């Protein structure tokens, strides 16, 4: 009798998906997401877009913080760099949107070399503060480089048209975001199971032991920074397009904290966790409002007119609850449910 989900070969351990039903569910989910713009109204669709864009950014941060264990408090710096790179290339210099997206990845990746190199000997709180400082420096550079960035006035960004395909409409733009999210998810899952990904995890778990095993800490940490910044930059470009206007004010520091909250709630170090965490954090206030509105119109109004304060409280409460009762996040909870399902009625 099967008593658990055990890996018996190395091949099984690194396989992307270990069972056909998971492929089936994943395909159904993607089909559902493709159908979504046909049935959802514009408001609900905006949540879907935000989820897709945030998933890309969260997966980017997950490579650095989740896989490699390098805490970043300044990821909004890469996000805003990506957004500006796209806006400058496409809106200001009328380059092709694909060049814009490439720039949105490459420019933050280059910027990450600047912050990553001095940070190689730093860990924990020291690294967190360094990255935080980086995000402030980036904002100052953007505001001062008026000749390129228009300074505080910002840059308007149009929805792109790629090879005759217009992404002007919400439905089309949702598909573009979905494409980026699915591509990023596959990319990060593949990184995780590759030699590089295993080196990241080794560094996270014990960097001294990793070095003893022959892992070049500097090279891999820098690679984690570059990959993470590249992906986060893409998310920034999508976010800029969604906002239709790129300015430093549209990228507040709190986005960095929100991104960390997503990883904690979802389950640090797991791509699935980053996705689940994003869905929960983005939809939590709306779902709560929906539930409360069933009780009274006054509660609904409270959520509408004091939304931001209530949302901040909800985020804080959820993070505290997860840290106390489910530190492995939603992914941990999912694994527990699966284990109970398989082992029931036995306890283990």
């Amino acid at each position, binding site marked *: 009798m099967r008593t658990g989900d055990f890996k018996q070969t190395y091949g099984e351990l690194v396989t992307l998906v270990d069972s056909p039903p998971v492929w089936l569910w994943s395909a159904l989910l993607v089909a559902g997401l493709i159908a979504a713009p046909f049935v959802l109204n514009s408001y609900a669709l905006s949540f879907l877009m935000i989820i897709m864009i945030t998933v890309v950014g969260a997966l980017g941060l997950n490579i650095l913080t989740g896989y490699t264990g390098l805490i970043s408090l300044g990821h909004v710096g890469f996000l805003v760099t990506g957004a500006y790179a796209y806006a400058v290339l496409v809106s200001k210099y009328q380059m092709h949107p694909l060049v814009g997206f490439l720039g949105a990845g490459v420019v933050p990746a280059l910027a990450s070399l600047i912050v990553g190199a001095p940070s190689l000997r730093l860990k924990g709180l020291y690294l967190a503060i360094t990255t935080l400082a980086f995000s402030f420096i980036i904002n100052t550079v953007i505001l001062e480089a008026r000749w390129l960035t228009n300074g505080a006035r910002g840059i*308007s960004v149009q929805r792109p048209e790629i090879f005759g395909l217009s992404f002007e409409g919400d439905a089309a733009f949702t598909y573009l975001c979905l494409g980026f999210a699915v591509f990023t998810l596959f990319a990060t899952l593949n990184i995780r199971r590759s030699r590089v990904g295993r080196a990241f995890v080794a560094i996270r778990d014990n960097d001294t032991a990793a070095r003893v095993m022959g892992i070049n800490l500097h090279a891999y940490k820098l690679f984690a920074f570059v990959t993470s910044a590249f992906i986060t930059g893409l998310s920034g470009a999508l976010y800029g397009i969604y906002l239709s206007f790129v300015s430093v004010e549209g990228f507040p520091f709190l986005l960095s904290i929100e991104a960390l909250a997503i990883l904690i709630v979802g389950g640090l170090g797991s791509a699935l966790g980053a996705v689940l965490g994003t869905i929960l954090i983005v939809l939590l206030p709306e779902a709560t409002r929906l539930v409360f509105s069933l009780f009274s119109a006054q509660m609904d109004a409270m959520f509408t007119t004091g939304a931001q304060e209530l949302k901040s409280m909800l985020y804080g409460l959820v993070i505290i609850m997860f840290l106390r009762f489910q530190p492995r996040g939603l992914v941990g909870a999912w694994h527990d449910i699966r284990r109970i399902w398989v082992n029931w009625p036995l306890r283990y």
Partner: protein
Amino acid sequence: MIKYLATASLLLAGTYLSTGPALAADPGITDTEIVIGDVEPLTGPPALLGVAASIGHKIAIAEANAAGGINGRKIKYVLEDDGYVTARTIQGVKKVTDVDKAFALLGISGSGQSIAVMPLLEKAGIPTVIDVAPVKFLWEPPRKNVFVVGQSYEEGIIHLVNYLADKNPGKKWGLITQDDDYGITVRDGFDTVVKAKKLNVVYSGNYKKGQQDFSSDMLQLKDSGAEVFLAGGIIGENIAMMKELEKLNIKPVVGIFWPGRVEPVLKLMGPAGDGIYAVDYVEPFAGAAGKAFLEKAKGLLPEAEMKGVNRYSMTGYAAAKVLISAIERCGKQPTWACTITELEKTKNVETGIMAPISFGPGVRFSNQKLQIMQSEFSTLSFKPVN
């Protein structure tokens, strides 16, 4: 039981989320109601502006409803908080248009936020009257369905600096601005007059958004010997600057801009805020028009909301009056097209709290007349000086 609850929740969420585009040509109108939507910063520091503006909208709506509504239909006001976060403004606009099915919009948060939602508003075609943050991008180029009540920041600054320059000829000038779009606008307006009148600028500072400590900046201002000072902060920054000037025991002629021309700011400045000059396009509360507005508000608002009334309540009230009047002129079956046409035909609409409001073909900006006011700490008020 859990299964039933889960199914019920899914059905409920599905119904809520899948309400597709409205079947009727123009949403937000039933036999008894017209829905007007608004998105404002109701939490966080900019709430001082957003809450006040929404109160202004409420006063105009309550006034119209008390008079029987718009051609027999009561106005329902739907308000969303964006916390001054652009992404939330976009979602807020989508909510009030798609879920709450607003017929028209008012307000729309700050300048960056309203710029970001402009493509959305234009595409939707919903009649919109913006009143919180009048920046040129909102009316240049003119959009068919978007109208702006107010005056541009540039014009405001030019008017204020011209007045202070004429009143203080040959004096040394100092200026400090914020490192954002607002600050650039203030500086641009200032520079225009500096060039034209060849002003002697001895201090020019720039501060980071969120800065609270102005001791070093004000010390530099003192050392420069500036006799006329344009404080380009918004709210809290101007208070901190005035307190520092008081500590340094210097009292230059000070000019501030209308976002900070609210009574709570004057109270927080204390005696240091006495005699400062401000520019605005709405009447001060100390005047007859301001007092009449407060009286009207008292009769229409709950007491708790009266505390949130400031100059932005006046701009909000005026914008709502213009919109309501345009819908009313469309008769029993108002449509978006008719409302936009009527808004365009707006000519000299009197609100009692600012100069008459007019728009026109290709003119989407009301271009209000400006006036200079001076503060009086003993009565916590601003009084016109010209």
